[in-house]
Every structure is written in structure tokens, then in C-alpha cells.
């Protein structure tokens, strides 16, 4: 299982949990499995083409996946994933 840190603006989708656990072998897997457990979350993270939105970063442990292998970045048990959106007095998503 992979621990995923959910940022404050997305917690309404995860029943206010700041951390959830999902099974996943890659970031793409992780996003799909998060969506299955918490419907609506994928649309916040990805655009219509399934690409990660440019104002959201995903980190595996402390590394930004854009500088690893993007959505194909592999995950293993014990990894910690953090979702970190740009914030500016508000979140980038509608309330």
C-alpha cells in the first residue's frame, strides 16, 4: 500500500482524511485507484486528456514526479506520495 497525503482543498473528497492508503504500482495507477475510492479526485488532478494539471505537483517521497518519469513513475510499498497544489489565498479548485 502507498500512503498518499491529501492537501487541504481536496479533503472534502476523502471524508476529510489528510492521509489515505491505496494500492498502486505507478502514479497513473495511483490516480485511477484514488478515483475509484474517492470519485471526483481525478478531475482535480488531471485535465480532459488525462495529463496532470500544471498547477498540481505530485511528489514520491520528496521528489517531484515531473523530474522522474511523470505518470509512469513506479511506486513500491513504503513510498509516500504527496499531492501539492499551488495555493494563493485560495485553492486552485472551486470549493
Amino acid at each position: 500500500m502507498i500512503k498518499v497525503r491529501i492537501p487541504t482543498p481536496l479533503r472534502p473528497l476523502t471524508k476529510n482524511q489528510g492521509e489515505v492508503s491505496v494500492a498502486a504500482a505507478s502514479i497513473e495507477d495511483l490516480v485511477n485507484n484514488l478515483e475509484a475510492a474517492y470519485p471526483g479526485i481525478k478531475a482535480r488532478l488531471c485535465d480532459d486528456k488525462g495529463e496532470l494539471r500544471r498547477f498540481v505537483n505530485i511528489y514520491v517521497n520528496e521528489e517531484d514526479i515531473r523530474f522522474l518519469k511523470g505518470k509512469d513513475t513506479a511506486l513500491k510499498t513504503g513510498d509516500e506520495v504527496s499531492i501539492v497544489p499551488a495555493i494563493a489565498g485560495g485553492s486552485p479548485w472551486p470549493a
Partner: protein
Amino acid sequence: MQFTESEIQRYSRHIILQEVGGKGQLKLKRAKVLLIGAGGLGSPAALYLAAAGIGTIGLVDGDVVDLSNLQRQIMHSTATVGQPKVESGKKTLLALNPDITVNAYHQVVNADTILPLISHYDVVLDGSDNFSTRFLVNDACFFAKKTLISASMFRFEGQLTTIKPHQGYPCYRCLYPEPPPAGLVPNCQEAGVLGVLAGTMGILQASEAIKEIIGIGETLADKLLIYDALEMKFRKVARPKDPACPLCGPNPTIKDLWSDYTVTCTI
């Protein structure tokens, strides 16, 4: 004589620190720091910068003090409700430390005004509450080669990083290449925030500014600090330079300030 007797007394707890000393205190006195936003982040940051003896502090903000600001904007008070924030702030800072200069700019920064404004300063603190200003300030500081300390917050969560691409570090667009599209941004005025979180983040911002000015400690220029007040957790993640960065990369597509940075803040 670099310092008066009263200044030596005022800053004595700094001066006896080996890492600061008289030399470091003189750097603070000669420093000029511009704060974009005299609100939740700017208030605690400005108070500590004034207390620390930053010689020139500029405050930029187009707003007036509102009662709903006072839950976190501690540079203002009930008595200054209705006054421009920069004037209210200036009074507070000079009451704390009359030896410094405070410049008040009652305006909203835009692409026409920002470059002349920041040209007078060494370090810029971004405490703005919207994405338009955040990208504008980043781009302007990049072109003007000014060190930028950027803090932001939402509800119970804060982010902080130091931005100095002129010293080889990444810019804000290396972290987030583009602002969210119009329509995805909620009404900023109604976003809740834990008041004391503004204090935590603003003071951390002031701390990083002081370190950059004196040149001590570890820089936050290759990290992003994330603070979760509810979990009481600080985390740092790596913030590498993006070789494809549209601003500071080797093949930039942004070669000048955009004429308009507006991101619609309603939904």
C-alpha cells in the same frame, strides 16, 4: 559611526550573535525589502523585519483595513479600520521602530508598475492572495534579478520557498509552470484561513529574508516547505530547476512581462 547608541542597545541581542554581529546588523540596516501585500502574511513579516532593523521597508497594497482582516492581519487594529492598509501598517511599524524608513504604496501592482517599484529594493516578499499577482511578481523578480521569498496559505496549510534564479536556483514557474485557468479559481475573499497560520508563514518568510540578507544558514531556494497546522507537520520537498521552464529555462518562451496576468477569481 554606523549605529547610534540607542540602535546598539535595540539590536544588542542580534549583535551578540556570532552569526549576525555588527556586520550582519549593518547589512540589515542597509537592506531594502518590499512586501507585496500588507495583509495576513505581510503583517507578521513586516513587524519582525521592522523589529530586526531592516533599514527600508516598502509596503504595497491597494486595500483598506476591514474588520474581517483583524483575525490575522496584526499590523492593523480596530482603530484603523477603513484606512489604507499601507498607511495603517506604516504607523504600526514606525511605532515599533522609528529608526527605519517605511514607504507606503497604496496601489495594486500590475505589469506596468511592478518593475519600477521593485527596482528600488533588494529583496521582495510575496504575501499576495491571488495567482495573478504571484505569477506577475515571480516574472518581474526574475527579470529584475531580485531575490523573492514567496509564502502562501489556504485554510490550515501553508507553503514557503525562496526564489533566486539569478543565482542558479529555480523560479516559481519551475515549480508551477502556469496559473490555474480562469473558472477553476474560487472566490479568494471567501476562502477561510486559520488566522495564526498567517503568523507562522509570515514569520518564516521574514526569517528566510533575514538569512538571505545576512548570508547565513541554509537557503530554501531548492526546497518547498509545506506546513500543515492541523497535523502539526512541516515537510520539505525538492524543488529542482526545470530545464523546460518557460521563464528561466535555456529556451524561454516568456521574454518579457505579460501585459495581463488576470486570472478570474470568481466561480
